[in-house]
């Protein structure tokens, strides 16, 4: 199988376990985003795939080969760094040419002056220049070939780094937060370009980011990581709508998903602050009820809450409330024209569409929930 396959990968830095028994398969042509908060191990995982870090346990396969013990250069991967990692003394053209020169020329042929006199050097240099020109054209760097990285803007530097990655047609692209140092508008634009490059090259891509919107918009599948583990690996839509772990539910989505403390009796009937909310779950004990802000609705009667602030976002209103019995903060999204219908004293009742409600047990695992009656929502 082409692509990347990782099995049972573990890595410790001293006493701290950074990666715990990670398994992940990325098929050829697939774009997988590793997303998680700082220190979750996503960059370490990527560096293990690149061969810059070495795992304590587990195997990594790229294409048909077991590359676990191989050097980065033997793994046939290309990497893009957050810091761009361009060679500051080389021009754009020379920077893009480095991976080709390192592979197609031997040490003697790479020497300045003497190298050019050796047989074969000229021909290889010529073919390298042609490939560099194509990669540079693809990224719109044609006019900048003679510049040094220091003379380029952040966006242009990252393009050079991308060109250096695609010039060799590697078996896998590894990207370590390539857009983090760019400003917001450029980030959105470059995001689509990276996806286009990935589609055009058709190779397995692993993309590390702490920005969930990048992960959701770019990736075929998203792996949400925390504390050195992959909590869930699924398509962006599934990660958003059907999270299997409370940490995934709260990490993905902006504003944050609403969570209400709840409890299930031995009969499995779910109550929050003593109020039956019309759900029966598998299991008993303390639970967490979670609902996206856009799924919560205002109603004449239901869960009591008090409005704390209303934010106008243009296409919608974001209403911040507090659940009256427990004091839990909640958010809900409304159409802008609904502002006038909000009561002046701020006391409202909420209706939770049960088909959209997510229930997690005390360990944060998702539990199956069914409506008590055919009615779709509370009250």
């Amino acid at each position, binding site marked *: 199988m082409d692509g990347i396959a990782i099995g049972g990968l573990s890595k410790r830095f001293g006493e701290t376990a950074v990666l715990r028994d990670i398994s992940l398969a990325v098929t050829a042509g697939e774009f997988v985003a590793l997303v998680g908060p700082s220190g979750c191990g996503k960059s370490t995982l990527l560096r293990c795939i690149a061969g810059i870090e070495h795992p304590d346990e587990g195997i990594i396969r790229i294409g048909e080969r077991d590359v676990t013990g191989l050097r980065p250069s033997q793994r046939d991967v290309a990497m893009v760094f957050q810091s761009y990692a361009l060679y500051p003394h*080389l021009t754009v053209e020379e920077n893009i040419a480095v991976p080709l020169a390192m592979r197609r020329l031997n040490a003697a042929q790479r020497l300045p002056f003497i190298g050019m006199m050796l047989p074969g050097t000229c021909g290889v240099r010529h073919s390298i220049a042609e490939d560099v020109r194509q990669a540079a054209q693809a990224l719109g760097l044609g006019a900048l070939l003679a510049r040094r*990285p220091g003379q380029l803007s952040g966006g242009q530097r990252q393009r050079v780094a991308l060109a250096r990655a695609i010039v060799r047609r590697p078996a896998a692209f590894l990207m370590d937060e390539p857009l983090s140092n760019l400003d917001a*508008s450029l980030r959105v634009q470059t995001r689509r370009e990276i996806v286009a490059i990935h589609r055009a090259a058709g190779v397995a891509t692993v993309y590390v980011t702490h920005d969930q919107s990048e992960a959701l918009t770019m990736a075929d599948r998203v792996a949400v990581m925390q504390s050195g583990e992959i909590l869930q690996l699924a398509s962006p839509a599934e990660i958003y709508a059907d999270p299997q772990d409370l940490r995934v539910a709260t990490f993905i989505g902006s504003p944050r998903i609403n969570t209400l403390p709840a409890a299930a009796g031995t009969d499995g009937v779910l109550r929050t602050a003593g109020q039956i909310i019309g759900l029966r779950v598998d299991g008993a004990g303390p639970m967490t009820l979670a609902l996206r802000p856009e799924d919560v609705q205002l109603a004449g009667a239901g869960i009591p809450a008090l409005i704390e602030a209303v934010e106008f976002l243009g296409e919608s209103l974001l209403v911040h409330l507090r659940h009256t019995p427990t004091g839990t903060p909640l958010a809900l999204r409304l159409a802008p024209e609904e502002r006038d219908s909000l009561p002046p004293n701020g006391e409202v009742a909420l209706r939770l569409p049960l088909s959209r409600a997510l229930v997690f047990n005390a360990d944060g695992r998702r539990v199956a929930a069914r409506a008590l009656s055919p009615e779709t929502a509370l009250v």
Partner: protein
Amino acid sequence: MRTGAVWRRVRFRRKRLLSSTLAIPEPRLSARKCVTGESLAGWMLTAPAALAFATMLLLPTIATIALAFTDYELGATGLSWIGLDNFAELLHDRGFVIALRNTILYVTIVAPLSVLGGLALALMIEAGTRGRALFRAVFFLPAVSLPVAMASAWQYLLHPTIGPLNAALHAIGIDGPAWLSSSDTVLISLAAIGVWENLGFNLVLFLAGLTAIPRDLYAAAEVDGANNGWDRFRLVTWPLLGPTTLFVVTITMTRAVRVFDSVAVLTQGGPNKASQVLLYAMYEEGFTYFRLGYSAAITLVFLVIVLALVWLQTKLLEKRVHYA
């Protein structure tokens, strides 16, 4: 192959994504009226440094330059302007020519050895996992110790009969020379001491330069195919050390040109001027024979050499190793 079509597709998508950026002109502040007050404050703030520079550096230099064209001798009641006579005499002064030749020889031995040695040691210490602080301190010791005291220690080490070096050589059957009193070996011995003095200083400068190289560049070099240490050195370490290397080379050459302490303590330029160097010749003319005018002429030659080195450094810095 289909790659051509693929590239075209990427290019096409890129084009659609390009958007124009809006430039907003910044309002210009009219600050003309503050200028006089500001410049007065500026002058007052720089006054202490300017005063120190003028009295300690600029005036003595100008005085030296002026003296170099006179026949002034210490204690003389008058002096007369003799134009270039001092410099004409320098050309025919065997002592000065030997001093100049010895100084150049000394610099050509000390500068490359202590620069390359410092670099090699820095790379080794950087690559090692333990003992960095220890090695750094050990090699830096000569740079912070008193040169005269260290010279006395070297006098003992290199003593032809009681010195440990010759004792060690004797033990393996070699009769060591009289290191500091034979005209064949004296300059080499002094150069070895010079290398020892400069090595640690260069090492610390190189270590600082090495830590400033981003780790990501080494990672990128490895991914790009730099398999062995030599490739990574050629691709990353050496070019990125460029500014450091240039600085180290200039400072080492300047320090080597002004070699004085070890010569004054160990050989006084002897035997038979075999270790005579520029600054020691200058010192002898000025403070032994009291020919201050002539001594100033030697100082001027020294000054020109040092300024030429500094000029070369700035020129190169602008051209070759400036990456920003």
